[in-house]
């Protein structure tokens, strides 16, 4: 399964607990952090947790997305679906 598909599944699951006007679109225009972020910090943490669990289920590999590497990168890997997906692929290769 492609990482992007996993992100789609994670967003679907997260949307279950969000009100209609808060639901996250699966689109590359969506921002997860910064001033244009579509979700608050606790919802972001939930999304990250769901992604980690799905990765574990599908790849049988435990990863921690929020780590030093994430913070030290010039551009945050959580900026968009595209950047997040590339970041996870990198982590999985390690």
């Amino acid at each position, binding site marked *: 399964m492609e990482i992007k598909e996993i992100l789609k599944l994670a967003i679907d*699951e997260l949307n*279950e*607990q969000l009100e209609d006007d808060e639901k996250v679109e699966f689109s590359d225009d969506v921002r997860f952090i910064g001033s244009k972020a579509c979700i*608050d910090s*606790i919802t972001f*943490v*939930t999304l990250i*947790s769901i992604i980690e669990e799905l990765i574990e289920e599908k790849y049988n590999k435990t990863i921690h997305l929020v*780590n030093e590497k994430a913070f030290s990168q010039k551009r945050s890997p959580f900026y968009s679906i595209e950047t997040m997906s590339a970041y996870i692929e990198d982590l999985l290769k390690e």
Partner: protein
Amino acid sequence: MNIDFLIEKILSYKDNVAVVTDGAEYTFKQIFDEYENAKSFLEKNNVKESSVVSLLADFNPHSIAMFLALIEKNTIIVPISNTIKAIDSYMKVSESEFFIGQEEDHFKIQKIDNVVSHKMLLDLKNKNKPGLILFSSGTTGEPKAALHDLTYLLEKFKKDGKKLSTVTFLLFDHIGGFNTMMHTLSNGGLIVTLKTRSADEVCSLIEKYKLELLPTSPTFINLIILNKTYEKYDLSSLKIITYGTEPMPESTLKAMHKILPQVTLKQTYGLSEVGIMPTKSENSESLWMKLRNDETFQTKIVDDILYIKSKSAMIGYLNAESPFDEDGWFNTKDKVLVKGDYVKILGRTTDLINVGGQKVYPIEVESVFLDLEEVLDIRIYGADNPIMGKVVEAEVKVSEENNNREFIKRLRKFAKEKLETYKIPVKFNLTTKDLYGDRFKKKR
């Protein structure tokens, strides 16, 4: 001397049945005989007054009689229930000089090479008063050993109370277990002992012996509801269910009241450090309770935290700093809400989860999810998180068919309607295993 009042009462109840174990009935007279035997046993084995004695047992006529004999002998008793694994460490902390174990209906005794050196133990020995050492059952950290002067704990049993028939649900080494035993014996009630403490065993014995009182925990009540054990057995003899030892989810309380409307559901508030406090629940559906303030118990609330000062408080911990302030107040670490004379326990401040500055009490989240039929049990706890500091996580007991990702989606959808976002668990760990330990208390 110490229990003259009790022996007098026991002798007056003569041929009434006092204890039922494994279907065998023992009258008060037989308990008295067992007590005399136990006294001779201690004598024969050179157990001197003021010795520290560990007693490994569960409730049965022989262990009850031995307990009474040990009180009468002015020993310092360390009751250890059969579920305890760290027996050696209990004996070391309590500086036990004797170990008594039970094999069927007879006892074996062992002299232990310990020298009592703890100041509190030596003080009690010098006063030649009976003592009781209760270990906290906390799942984190080393269990704390609370040393009591037994003469204060015995005081309340001198007054006459309600005669009730009951089961020894709470364990032998628990303040609640001690309370059940002493209350029932001193008022001529009936004690039915348990083997497995399963919902079926407890309910079948309630039916068989028409028992009136069930002292238990919220987790166990939840178990009876979920397994519909109340449908299998006639529980109409029950008059009172007391619940304590952990916070009660409102949903569980209301459900139980609906099932057994004739039963008074009463919250108890006891701590091994201060004894059992007299309380009065507002009603059977309410978690609000009145704490009685009298000459034996005083309470105060400072910054929403409950403090207790009690005559029956322990002398102190043998292996930890004193938890009392200079005026003798004990900080329960329980956060409470106040409504007139009533208080409602929200939970231990140590269980409180601080999600980015917002406070979450596990019990309120647990209570919400327990409304879902498919949630068989739930434990809410705080987990470290690099972004929020702490976040809420859940361990949920489900049936095999719901042990999948789709069910987590349902939980999230359900949570949206009932809980603020920061209270919704970031992670749901599904399991088909039980979430409670030997004491029918959630593992926290």
